């Protein structure tokens, strides 16, 4: 406040002038007399570091969201990014003062300012990986496994809002996570399809394609749904086709005005995904290891005509052992592995004590956050040597003597 009441103003000005004289200071301007405010000690004002980019983002979006349950560390989410919130302590006192001026142009003005709080802590934001680990577990609780279970599972089903309340991620990252898991919104709830149920559903679809001699490059979505309706709900058929294929852009439909096929949507199955599906189906159907060449034969036979099986399709799903005779292939899905890096490496080395660089990479990719690299993880958790023959890196556990 500006002191302009003559009595109070004058006596305050005098007092300040006296203090200056005593301090041997002259030519002092822009004086701000500082007090603790009347409610000092009860005010709750906090500081949060906002980089210029985040500040711009806040202006655009007008609000951010703080998320975290119970013992979790809080995160701050913008529309598309997640930041870990860290409490930093200073050894200095930070006095927070409304209306404090930093004007240096000299002025005779004398004003009074009040300190609202003294802070020793501020919040720092660090960009981090959205914490989507829980998403799979949460969605699996209500995984679709047939209409007969729908009522029983109702309590576990989650809407977008429900998920945002549990998962520490921005909305966009959540959508990305949902897409990756192949979740679909069904009656307002996000659902995944239970693994075995999905395998049966996919098998029925692929069998139908064979029966009808429909090309896997032009699968009629609606016709397929309708034909299989008695065996599985349409949304399941649609989900499978969208998981394993892409919609075909129909240039013809744009030109034609009246066409019996006008409403039909065509899907082109993705070879990599279908090969992967069958490969996983065969590998997981019996526990343990397969003779590699036998497996490759069975696998190729199972595929629709025109598709070719290749081991690269099983990246992150299978481990190939070429040191044994005969060569073996084992089912090892990355999804089932521990999320904690140390535990994951421990498990990987329990399966095989030497890993080639190209073989281990697929099992580490989902552990990487922003600014991190797979190589940094390898450096931290493994010992490496170079294979004489291939000249490529090979990794061993650091734990072994």
């Amino acid at each position, binding site marked *: 406040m500006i002191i302009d009441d003559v009595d109070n103003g004058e006596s305050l000005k005098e007092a300040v002038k006296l203090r200056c004289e005593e*301090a041997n200071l002259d030519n002092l301007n822009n004086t701000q007399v500082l007090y603790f405010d009347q409610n000092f000690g009860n005010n709750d004002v906090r500081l949060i570091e906002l980089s210029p980019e985040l500040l711009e983002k806040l202006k655009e979006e007008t609000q951010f969201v703080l998320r975290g349950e119970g013992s979790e560390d809080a995160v701050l989410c913008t529309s598309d990014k997640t930041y870990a919130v860290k409490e930093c302590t200073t050894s200095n006192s930070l006095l927070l003062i409304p209306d404090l001026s930093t004007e240096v142009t000299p002025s005779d003005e004398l004003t009074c300012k009040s300190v609202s709080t003294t802070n020793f802590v501020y919040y720092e934001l660090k960009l981090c990986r959205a914490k989507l680990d829980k998403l799979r577990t949460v969605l699996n609780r209500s995984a679709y496994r047939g209409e007969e279970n729908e009522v029983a599972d109702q309590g576990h089903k989650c809407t977008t809002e429900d998920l945002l309340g549990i998962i520490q991620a921005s909305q966009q990252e959540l959508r990305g996570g949902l897409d990756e898991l192949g979740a679909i919104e069904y009656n307002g709830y996000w659902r995944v399809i239970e693994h075995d149920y999905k395998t049966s559903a996919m098998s029925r679809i692929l069998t139908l394609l064979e029966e009808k001699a429909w090309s896997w490059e032009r699968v009629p979505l609606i016709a397929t749904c309708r034909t299989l309706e008695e065996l599985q709900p349409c949304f399941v058929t649609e989900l499978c086709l969208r998981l394993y294929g892409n919609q075909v852009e129909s240039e013809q439909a744009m030109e034609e005005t009246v066409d019996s096929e006008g409403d039909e949507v065509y899907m082109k199955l993705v070879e990599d995904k279908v090969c992967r599906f069958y490969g996983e189906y065969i590998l997981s159907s019996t526990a343990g290891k397969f003779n590699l060449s036998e497996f490759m034969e069975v696998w190729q036979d199972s595929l629709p005509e025109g598709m070719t099986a290749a081991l690269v399709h099983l990246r992150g799903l299978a481990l190939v052992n070429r040191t044994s005779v005969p060569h073996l292939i084992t089912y090892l899905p990355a999804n089932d592995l521990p999320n904690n890096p140390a535990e994951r490496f421990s498990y990987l080395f329990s399966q095989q004590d030497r890993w080639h660089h190209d073989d281990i990479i697929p099992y580490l990719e989902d552990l990487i956050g922003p600014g991190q690299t797979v190589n940094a993880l390898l450096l931290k958790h493994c010992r490496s040597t170079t294979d004489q023959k291939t000249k490529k890196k090979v990794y061993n556990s650091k734990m072994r003597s």
Partner: protein
Amino acid sequence: MPEVLLKLKDSLDKWGLIELQGMVECPSSMALQGAHIGDLHIDKTGTPQLVIGHHILTGKIQKLDKPFGVMTRSADDHWNVSAVIHEKYIFKTRPKPIIQKNKPED
């Protein structure tokens, strides 16, 4: 678990920050309420001078690499960013004691 929002206030207030080494001490915050702390001046060279009790601190105005958002509680248990601070006063040098001038004898 409900979301806690951090909302940018429509029209931002102006807040400032003074950084001091050490702490302002007092047995209880209550005793501090309304109390005079000191006088903040700008001298003829544009340098901030802070007179607290019998000491002067000389400081500077420093731009913040990362601006501070000032968080205040909003009515509905959420938070507002009510102000953004881009620069601060900082007093890092040792306080100089003020030696009282002798009053001239009448």
